[in-house]
């Protein structure tokens, strides 16, 4: 590992100012991506700004839905998750499991227990690995990403493989979304790494809007699937998802599987995602 200077940030504003103070500085959250990358000498930040201990960046809050209009059976609460909240904390939050079991289940299957004890939601989405799980969830849930300078919709945030709309010196503080009426996640992990070979997140809002996102498969990172969205809008059922003809265009071919294989898996994972919803 190259040499670096370690800083412990006291709060989010302090982290942003430390980050802005040097062009090659990086935020260090759980380090479950950044440290291995630094060990391989693929990253060489001059400064590391540790945000893992910052209380205002940790935890889950759930705000009851406003009782306007017809009461729906499920969903509508506003869920906010702090950027430095670990996968373990998300996976084991009982209130969150009641409001949105798809996201707690997703967190419980990221990597392994030691990775979940340290890795954070903010680090996962800032990194935007094309096979990471959280980007799929936030895109399908229509989440908003709150940073130290602005709010960004998930549609605008994920701009391609390993890239996001974050500017230099901008720190993610939290993400928020409305609890869905129904949501599910189907993941086929690569056996060696546990990252998604293909992961499909399906979500139906309390207004009936359906969004479907796919991770692991796109050759430019996470994306929404229009064909699955329209099929599930007219008929929210596993059979409807399975009936969609998923093309291999724009999909990834690599050592683990080719584009046609991934296209097929998208249909299968979408079906399982609806089944689990």
């Amino acid at each position, binding site marked *: *590992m*190259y*040499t*670096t*200077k*370690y800083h*412990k940030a006291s709060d989010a504003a302090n982290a942003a100012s430390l980050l802005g103070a040097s062009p090659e500085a990086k935020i*260090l959250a759980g*380090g*479950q991506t950044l*440290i*291995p990358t*630094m*060990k*391989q000498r693929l990253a060489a930040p001059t400064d*590391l700004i*540790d945000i*893992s201990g910052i209380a205002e960046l940790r935890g889950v809050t759930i705000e009851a839905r406003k009782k306007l209009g017809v009461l729906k059976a499920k969903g509508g609460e506003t869920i906010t998750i702090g950027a430095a909240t670990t996968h*373990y904390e998300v996976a*084991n939050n009982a209130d969150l499991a009641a409001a949105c079991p798809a996201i707690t289940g997703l967190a419980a299957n990221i*990597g*392994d*227990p*030691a*990775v979940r*004890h*340290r890795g954070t939601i903010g680090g996962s989405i800032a990194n935007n690995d094309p096979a990471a799980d959280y980007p799929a969830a936030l895109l399908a849930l229509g989440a908003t990403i709150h940073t130290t300078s602005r709010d960004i919709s998930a549609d605008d945030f994920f701009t391609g493989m390993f890239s996001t709309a974050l500017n230099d010196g901008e720190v993610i503080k939290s993400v928020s979304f409305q609890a869905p009426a129904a949501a599910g996640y189907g993941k086929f992990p690569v056996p*060696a*790494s*546990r990252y998604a070979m293909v992961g499909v997140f399906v979500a139906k809002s309390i207004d009936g809007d359906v969004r479907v996102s796919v991770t692991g498969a796109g050759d430019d990172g996470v994306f929404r699937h229009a064909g699955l969205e329209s099929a599930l809008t007219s008929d929210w059922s596993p059979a409807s998802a399975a009936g969609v003809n998923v093309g291999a265009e724009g999909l990834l071919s690599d050592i683990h599987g080719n584009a046609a294989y991934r296209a097929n898996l998208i249909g299968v994972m979408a079906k399982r995602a609806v089944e689990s919803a």
Partner: protein
Amino acid sequence: MTKITMTVNGKAASADVSDNTLLVEYIREHLRLTGTHVGCDTSQCGACVVHVNGQAMKSCTMLAAAAEGAEVTTVEGLAASKDDLHPMQLAFKENHGLQCGFCTPGMIMTATDMVKRYQEAGKELTEDAIRHELEGNICRCTGYHNIVKSIQDGASKMTTA
């Protein structure tokens, strides 16, 4: 350089380390606690697992500076003495849960962490759950079967809740 202070196996430990020192380097090279192993450079094998503030973590994927003020337990901290092994260590010994032993410290630290979490949550630690929980620990010798048996046996003798 950063001055770090933490508690390792119940004893205060403190040193000046360069900022890029990994926790595992501090444990092995400064404290000479060589029970914690390094089996990969991709954060995948789990040979380096220790407990930090009561949670299993990969000490190869964490800076020593990030453990400032923490309570760290390594495999050396489990047994009261050489002749009084922790129930999980005894279980690995009795169930042939190791061959070369390289993965064993990480397996045992992962095992004691999972048993504690399941017992505290009042959840049953089934064979399937053990296999899922071992996702981050690689063994090149045993084929895992006896490791799973060891953890089942060790769990039945551990009371943490």
